[in-house]
């Protein structure tokens, strides 16, 4: 993993997410839904980086970057959830063809559902989000997950083009370096 380039891309992703990313927000009966680019990046890293340690460090960094742009209590939770989600995707990836669009969509959906539903539950338990709206928030988190999963293949394709800059040793089936 080339960390300087990775951090620069993360910074650019945070900027896009917190500004022009709003153009992609969609109104739904459950509230606004938006794609989370940093989550899609975490899925890409978990699927295409060879070293387990690099995957976990990168996922933690992406989670912390998302956390830093939020307000309210529970800072640090997304970093842990991204890390756990990326670990799950990393373990599952050997069973699938990572280059396939369907695999990327399914992996991103599982990752986002785990991360955003867990985040919503924690915020409700903390009392920062109202418990009375939990059903709507869970539905909204599911909407965000589906939207992010739908755009993940595009983000993966864009990041694959930068693979040589981003990754020292691109992955392939059965080429994991522990």
């Amino acid at each position, binding site marked *: 993993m080339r960390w300087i380039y990775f951090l620069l891309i993360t910074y650019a992703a945070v900027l896009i997410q*917190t500004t022009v990313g*709003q153009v992609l927000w969609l109104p739904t009966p459950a509230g606004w839904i938006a794609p*989370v680019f940093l989550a899609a990046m975490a899925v890409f890293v978990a699927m295409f980086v060879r070293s387990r340690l690099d995957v976990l460090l990168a996922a933690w960094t992406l989670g912390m970057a998302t956390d*830093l742009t*939020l307000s309210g209590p529970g800072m*640090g939770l997304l970093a842990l959830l991204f890390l756990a989600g990326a670990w799950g995707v990393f373990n599952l990836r050997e069973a699938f063809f990572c280059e396939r669009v369907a695999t990327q969509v399914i992996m991103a959906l599982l990752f986002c559902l785990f991360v955003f539903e867990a985040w919503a539950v924690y915020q409700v338990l903390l009392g920062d989000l109202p418990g009375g*709206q939990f059903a709507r*928030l869970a539905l909204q988190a599911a909407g965000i997950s589906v939207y992010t999963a739908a755009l993940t293949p595009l983000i993966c394709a864009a990041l694959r083009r930068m693979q040589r800059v981003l990754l020292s040793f691109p992955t392939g089936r059965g080429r994991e370096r522990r």
Partner: protein
Amino acid sequence: MLAGLCLLSVVCMVLPVRHARWPSRALRPALAPIGDAGMYLTTRMRGRLGELTGREAEGPEVVGHLNHALRQTLEQQLEELSELRRWRGVLGDEFLCRLVPARVVGVEPLPMRDRRVVSAGADRQVRGGDLVTTRRVLHPIGVALPPELAVLGRNAVVGRILDPAAHTATLQLVTDPSFSMPGQLWRMVGPGQKRTVHVEGPRGAWAEHTDHNRGAVARPAGRLVGRAPGKFRPFGSIPVRMEGDGRQIALAHVPEKHQIAPGDFLTTDVSELLPFGIPIGYVERTERETGDAHFVRVFVKPLDELDSLRRVYVIQPIDREGK
């Protein structure tokens, strides 16, 4: 190393928000300057998209209607001006608050919270709890305004400040799920309308009260377009507690006997700083509560398009300056 990072995350989670969020506040100056340009692009694109999808249509008919509305609004504003002079008499020679201009420079990445980052922070004495407004001016887009024209606009509250940093602050919108604030709901009687509501008397007894607003109804070209022209008359207010629900503002447990109807107005509560309510939104619909038929849930639509907010003003006490 990984264990150390996990431990750091857990420590951040258990620390109080004030201490845990300092890295977040420290990072904002690195994002705000570029974010400003990004938000400019976003609001322009959303505005253009709105025009294309007909949300802000500017056809000749609409411009004609706006010209007609402008004439009526001018008359209405002259009346409001005399009302403001009266308020100035109440407030004394000095105004108690001032408006600090700011721009929206970022949004939160997870839309489960409806919050923005604004470009005014502790350096401009902005503090948590300060109300944030926008100014609305009725003006056809094709007509150029002369420079330095004094424009009489209308303020609308869009949220309040939460967690101010050195040069930026988090703006919690009125639709944020954790937004909660007392307010006043004004029952309105439109021009040419008659309305009967129950009003609480001095001894707590409820009595029927009818108001007939005989003001002229605006009918440009023989038809009613919108509801801006004409003078709506307030018909007494009731105290309510407003809460955001992610899409609009919800008012729970409003007694059914108040007969709230679409078009009624929600304003902020009266305080020492603001001895009058600032508009927030208007009632879109009401729903009978499932548990108790004597209460209704009222849904209020904010006056401003919150998804394309750009320029905002923080209301702050004038005596805070320099402290």
